[in-house]
């Protein structure tokens, strides 16, 4: 999209047939919003108010406190929490800052709560993690699309253009979601598994594909390993059993398998609904196994992909914000990777810290004996977005120092010791990497208001004050350094320059050299594994979700609504969006509403083993009996994440956001 100096926004046809949803149209209105922070804020003493301060005072204070904490407790006393909305340059700079200036291992980011399960499964199966290993326009050419736990019609509406085109060409759309979402309403076939049982459904569909002989033996033979072990495990997933576990009727399973098997080209795509579980990595692997059995990845119009959750969800996880990663998707455990990055950064490999904690572990540990005592937050709002948020908010309040960089006073900023006002999208220059792995330029459209600074500049300044040279505030310089650091890595940006990006519609990574055209489609010839073959990793279903019982008989699932983004810190401050969807609600099946004596609009209390939240009942059979849905964009008593289960996936560190046991009760007397 483009923005004019008066902050009005227009869509432009990029990357392909672009459009804007209401969030895009209204995104300019925050640029001049009265909610905008334009001066640093400092809290004197634990309970004092935030007061305006000068940048020099704020940064001096932070540097002095960080240095003191590090001297007393060691480098891991300081932790950094980043965000998937930051530009590639900022994500990279933040990772380098943590490892070089702070020398802490404790850096992670909110993307851990977003796509980490898909990333882990992609790495395991394909040797690489790029959300879509094909251009998004391929969707229109797929004879069948299987969308799993992915409500794009609300979360990423412009992508629905491609689905409309796909269906207009006669393609079949299959949606897997417990809820009848806006996306499910578009589908030819809607499968509604009980929350937390997707893994069994994926195995069941693969079982049917193989039982009917629709697996691609030639592809399996030439391009994969591990099929025999998978096939034996899949023998356990006969359709009648899968029906019992998932609630998806046998006939619907057969219809879905037949549609996938019968299509000339087919796509399997996952979203947060199937990924945000304590078995999320295995669940995604099960969907990948299905795609591989059908011989999809690598062929045009076919494959497996994961639909990104944040603006720079893809780039944000490639350049070192992740606890176990270095830029270019390099591993912080690998000696050669460490040596390469250390050389670019001008430090000794031994000086780089090792892998740190995943996001929830990091937040959960704050203030404990082994936990960090100071936290720097960039582009995230964990008071609202972390699971078990009440507990995390208490941990944040107990820190010796909490620093938050944001452009509005988010709920996390509001409890910080120091708040730093930073740029918004239209005021910054840099790159982001979209869901296709396409690196695109973000051009500064207007200057930031006085008093606001760019994160690159803030981090460089802080590094300098901490005695670490080599941090630049210029995005193009940082991007060139990022390119060098990523050179030879899996996400290789070495051949990408701002000039190249300015000349066209972006460049797909990997792009190792200036004369390399970039890579719109991965896997045409080989996978990024050592032997070039994709890996079937057999996975088994086990009921890992918090089991409903007499006290907590319902299943709570959480997600997004169209009008809001992430923790809502931005979108709740936009009048039009607040008017569209102003308060938190909980979707309740009419049967459950009747049982509770609740009418549409009544206030209810939703409780789990971790806490309680208040929301307005929205009575609808879009949710199945005994499944309730709550969006997570609201703060205070309406925080869905006061309720969510922080049980982590053992591979990805993803919390079980998408299902936990809950109960609903009426809150007070009915108004009418």
């Amino acid at each position, binding site marked *: 999209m483009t923005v004019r100096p008066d902050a009005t926004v227009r869509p432009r046809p990029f990357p392909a047939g672009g459009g804007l949803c209401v969030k895009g*149209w209204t995104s300019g209105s925050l640029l001049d919003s009265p909610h905008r922070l334009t001066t640093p804020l400092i809290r004197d003493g634990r309970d004092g108010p935030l007061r305006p301060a000068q940048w020099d005072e704020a940064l001096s204070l932070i540097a002095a406190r960080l240095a003191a904490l590090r001297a007393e407790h060691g480098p891991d006393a300081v932790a950094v929490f980043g965000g998937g909305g930051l530009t590639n340059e900022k994500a990279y700079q933040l990772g380098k800052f943590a490892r070089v200036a702070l020398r802490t291992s404790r850096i992670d980011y909110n993307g851990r709560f977003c796509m980490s399960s898909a990333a882990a499964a992609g790495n395991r199966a394909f040797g690489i993690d790029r959300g879509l290993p094909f251009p998004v326009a391929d969707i229109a050419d797929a004879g069948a699309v299987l969308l799993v736990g992915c409500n794009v019609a609300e979360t990423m509406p412009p992508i629905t*253009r491609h*689905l409309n085109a796909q269906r207009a060409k006669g393609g079949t759309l299959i949606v897997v979601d417990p809820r009848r979402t806006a996306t499910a309403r578009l589908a030819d076939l809607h499968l509604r598994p009980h929350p937390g049982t997707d893994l069994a459904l994926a195995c069941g569909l693969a079982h049917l594909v193989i*039982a009917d002989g629709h697996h691609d033996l030639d592809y399996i033979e030439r391009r994969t390993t591990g099929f025999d072990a998978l096939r034996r495990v899949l*023998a356990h997933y006969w359709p009648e*059993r899968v029906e019992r576990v998932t609630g998806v009727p046998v006939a619907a399973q057969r219809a879905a398998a037949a549609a996938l098997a019968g299509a000339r080209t087919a796509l399997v795509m996952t979203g947060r609904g199937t990924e945000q579980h304590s078995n999320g990595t295995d669940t995604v692997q099960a969907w990948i196994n299905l795609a591989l059995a059908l011989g999809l990845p690598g062929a045009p119009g076919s494959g497996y992909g994961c639909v990104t959750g944040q603006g720079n969800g893809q780039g944000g996880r490639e350049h070192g914000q992740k606890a176990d990663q270095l830029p270019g998707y390099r591993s912080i455990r690998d000696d050669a990777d460490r040596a390469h990055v250390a050389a670019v950064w001008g430090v000794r490999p031994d000086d780089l810290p090792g892998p740190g904690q995943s996001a929830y572990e990091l937040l959960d540990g704050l203030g404990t004996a082994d936990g960090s005592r100071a936290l720097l937050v960039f582009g995230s709002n964990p008071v609202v977005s972390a699971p078990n948020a009440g507990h995390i908010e208490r941990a944040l309040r107990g820190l010796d120092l909490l620093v938050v960089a944001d452009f509005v006073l988010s709920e996390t900023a509001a409890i910080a010791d120091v708040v730093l006002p930073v740029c918004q999208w239209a005021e910054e220059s840099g790159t982001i990497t979209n869901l296709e792995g396409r690196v695109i330029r973000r051009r500064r459209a207007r200057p930031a208001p006085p008093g606001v600074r760019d994160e690159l500049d803030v981090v460089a300044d802080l590094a300098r004050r901490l005695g670490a040279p080599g941090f630049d505030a210029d995005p193009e310089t940082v991007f060139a350094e990022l390119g060098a650091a990523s050179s030879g890595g899996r996400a290789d940006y070495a051949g990408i320059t701002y000039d190249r990006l300015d000349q066209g519609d972006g460049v797909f990574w990997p792009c190792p050299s200036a004369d390399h055209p970039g890579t719109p489609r991965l896997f045409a010839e080989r996978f990024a594994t050592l032997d070039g073959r994709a890996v079937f990793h057999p996975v088994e279903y086990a009921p890992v979700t918090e089991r409903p019982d007499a006290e907590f008989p319902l299943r709570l699932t959480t997600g997004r609504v169209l009008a809001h983004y992430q923790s809502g810190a931005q979108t709740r401050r936009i009048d039009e969006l607040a008017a569209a969807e102003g308060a938190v609600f909980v979707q309740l099946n009419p*049967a459950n509403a009747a049982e509770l004596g609740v009418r549409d609009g009544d206030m209810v209390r939703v409780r789990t083993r971790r806490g309680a939240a208040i929301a307005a009942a929205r009575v609808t059979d879009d949710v199945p009996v005994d499944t309730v849905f709550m969006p997570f964009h609201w703060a205070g008593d309406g925080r869905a994440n006061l309720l969510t289960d922080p049980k982590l996936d053992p591979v990805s560190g993803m919390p079980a956001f998408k299902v936990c046991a809950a109960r609903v009760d009426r809150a007070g007397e009915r108004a009418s």
Partner: protein
Amino acid sequence: MRIVVIGTGMAGVRFAADLRAGDPGFRHEITMFGAEPEPAYNRILLSSVLADTFPLRDIALPAAPDGVHMRVGRSVTEVDRAARVVRTENGATEYDVLVFATGSTPVVPPIPGLRGAAGLTPGAFTFRTASDCRAILAAARPGGNAVVLGGGPLGVEAARALAGRGMAVDLVHQQTHLLQRHLDPVAGRILAMALTAHGVRVHLDTAVTAVSGEERVSAVRLTDDTVLSCELLVAACGTRPEVALARACGLAVNGGVVVDDRMRSITDPAVYAVGDCAEHRGVVHGLVEPAWEQASRAAADIGGWSPEPRDRPVLPVLRLKAQDIDLAAMGDSAVVDEVDDPATEVVVFADPARRRYKKLVLRAGVIVGAVFMGDTGTMGTVTDLFDRARPAPADPAALLFDLATSGDSTEQVVCRCNGVTAKTILACEGRTVSEVARRTRATTGCGGCAGDVAALLTRASAKDPFASLAAATVNGAS
């Protein structure tokens, strides 16, 4: 610990896998003996193999994990509990813990001519093992005649499968309706109609009195002297727990090996029993879910970890594996009406012409039984409520039919991406779609509503906005 498992079926294999998964340090040595001559396989899929919806070569279960010694084709001939030894033809194996997972064996009814000195008469088969399945497949031929004895789940599945392979099938059942343990008479009749439609002749309330044929089975005679010629006979007359070995070694055996809540024999704490051969709290199950749960429970007990907590035991759900006949039954599904018990409600939808039948049995507002035939769209929810003993909705119709809400007011959102309602678009009467887009942003997101917006605008002038909206809804995204 040295652990010996007798039986390599679903329960035994599950037990070994669970115990190994919880024992990464290989503290236990597990040895399994299987009487069948082949590697462990998934018995559940045999009906599908017979129906040609699953390939026989794919029914193998995952290879035994490291540390599990699989001895197939070795029958255990004796258990010496005093010496803690099991014996086979090849020798003796000592154990610290012994697990019976011997499963069950088919019942062969005492019908003259069915059994000879060397076992079943050629052409007659039971249907329990992979070799049974292979033999039936070898004998089945399109155009031939087959008789299936027994109108329980396995008999119905076998009959449907053989009909699907082009055989003329007679299904003979002693009771007055099929699946009488699971279905009421009306449901049983609808099932019979469905089978008939697939080429199975159903003979009820009658029995086979004799099987004739010198070298091979050639015909059967029924109670009323009807003679059905056949070249293939499948006896699916139920199973009984395989407890001969357990009984011989002095364990308490009732219907099955009697076990406590930890799945230990009440006679000998070093012996466990799981699956079809076990009797727990007076019940012998014959289905895989309870068998797996028992296997996991025994593994946890022996391995020393807590079993998966449960509010209530796994309740069996019958799910027929018969092509194009969708049938599920659970709980007290055969209850006919509430006459005997005023606390019981029975809700029935019967549509024999379309082979549909749905039924809920409720007690104190909780589903205690259900049948779904022909249309299983809402069965997932029903099974879930049944499993957890959750209250059913006040109006049970919602559980019988998948009724999507249809909103049809002008408040309905037409452009979801930008939250534009039909009312707002109707207010733009007389304008073009692109003008509407500029004013309202409708169509500028995913663009999927462009057709609906155009339809609304075209028909708005027809002064019947509600009709136009309905049309747009039918054509559009909803």
